[in-house]
């Protein structure tokens, strides 16, 4: 069942910046990857007779985990500059954005034995968006999905046309254990509006979704989520370009 869209009026980042819970959430979200990097580095420092393949694998994990943490810090920095309005909206091919994201996330997915794939027409309607912000939203969803997808099922990046072609929905569908009803209720009521309580979704405390919501709002879009029996879809709805219809 589609649980519908979520409000587009979201709290501004500056207001949240003074919020202690926001800082705590941001710190927590960064702490997890940093703690892992530290543990791996400490082991590499002291390990004796570590097989070359194992060493290589650990170094790869350090690289991919640090890249994930850097994506978050970049998002936070980008989010704090949204009010400057220094970004352009332009007609973009949503499939191309999905391909860029899949390409960027594929090393991380591969390292975790997961698959990411695209389910979209080759020539979908164009979407009016900022390339960087839209890419970051889908990256966030893709990163979030990685933690909830089951080993056997790929994560899908999907593009749909809505409202007779006036809106485009870009979503990330994961197939895994269903989100429990209580977690879903919290998620649904807060999605994109504020960070989640820390216990709501451990690997993703909601900061990524909050930032994605900020980016969507800056592009006159909204984010939302659909709960499935076998997973969830997180999506962003944006205005379709009229460019094609004018031709």
């Amino acid at each position, binding site marked *: 069942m589609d649980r519908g869209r979520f409000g587009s009026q979201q709290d501004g980042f500056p207001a949240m910046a003074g919020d202690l819970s926001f800082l705590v959430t941001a710190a927590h979200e960064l702490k*997890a990857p940093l703690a*892992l990097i530290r*543990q791996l580095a400490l*082991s590499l420092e002291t390990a004796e007779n570590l097989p070359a393949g194992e060493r290589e694998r650990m170094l790869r994990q350090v690289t991919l985990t640090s890249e994930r943490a850097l994506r978050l810090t970049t998002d936070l920095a980008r989010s704090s500059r949204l009010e400057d309005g220094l970004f352009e909206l332009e007609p973009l091919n949503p499939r191309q954005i999905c391909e860029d994201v899949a390409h960027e996330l594929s090393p991380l997915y591969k390292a975790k034995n997961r698959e990411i794939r695209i389910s979209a027409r080759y020539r979908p309607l164009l979407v009016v968006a900022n390339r960087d912000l839209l890419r970051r939203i889908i990256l966030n969803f893709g990163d979030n999905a990685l933690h909830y997808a089951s080993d056997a099922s790929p994560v899908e990046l999907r593009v749909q046309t809505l409202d007779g072609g006036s809106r485009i929905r870009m979503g990330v569908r994961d197939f895994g254990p269903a989100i429990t009803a209580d977690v879903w209720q919290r998620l649904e009521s807060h999605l994109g509006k504020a960070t989640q309580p820390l216990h709501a979704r451990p690997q993703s405390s909601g900061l990524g979704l909050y930032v994605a919501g900020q980016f969507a709002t800056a592009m006159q879009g909204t984010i939302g989520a659909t709960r499935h029996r076998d997973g969830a879809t997180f999506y962003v709805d944006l205005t379709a370009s009229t460019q094609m219809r004018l031709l």
Partner: protein
Amino acid sequence: MTKTPYVLIVEDDEWLAEQHARTLGEAGIRTESVPHALAAIDSVDTNTPDALVLDLLLAGPNAFTLLHELRSHADLAAIPVILCTANAEGIVDEDIQAYGVKQVLDKATMLPHDLVAAVKKVLP
């Protein structure tokens, strides 16, 4: 012959779980890793561990749900638990002692041998 100690790791970050397993394995401790509380309950049902290394924040039911479940079974209530969390500063000792938690390790500051030492301390 001495029985090889067996520890169940409940950690939803698979690479950190792998790291814990590697560290404990080097110390001669056999491990199994599961990503969430429900899998942990299944695992404990079939193979009772000598100790549990438990992350606090898990996908789905959290660590306290698992601890409640373990405490409700007489044969499982005695399993010693080591909480391994990034939120150690938010934990009140009195809140967790009743759950059989023997030690809290802070993921951000612990050293690999801290985990080995903590586990060895609680092994029978």
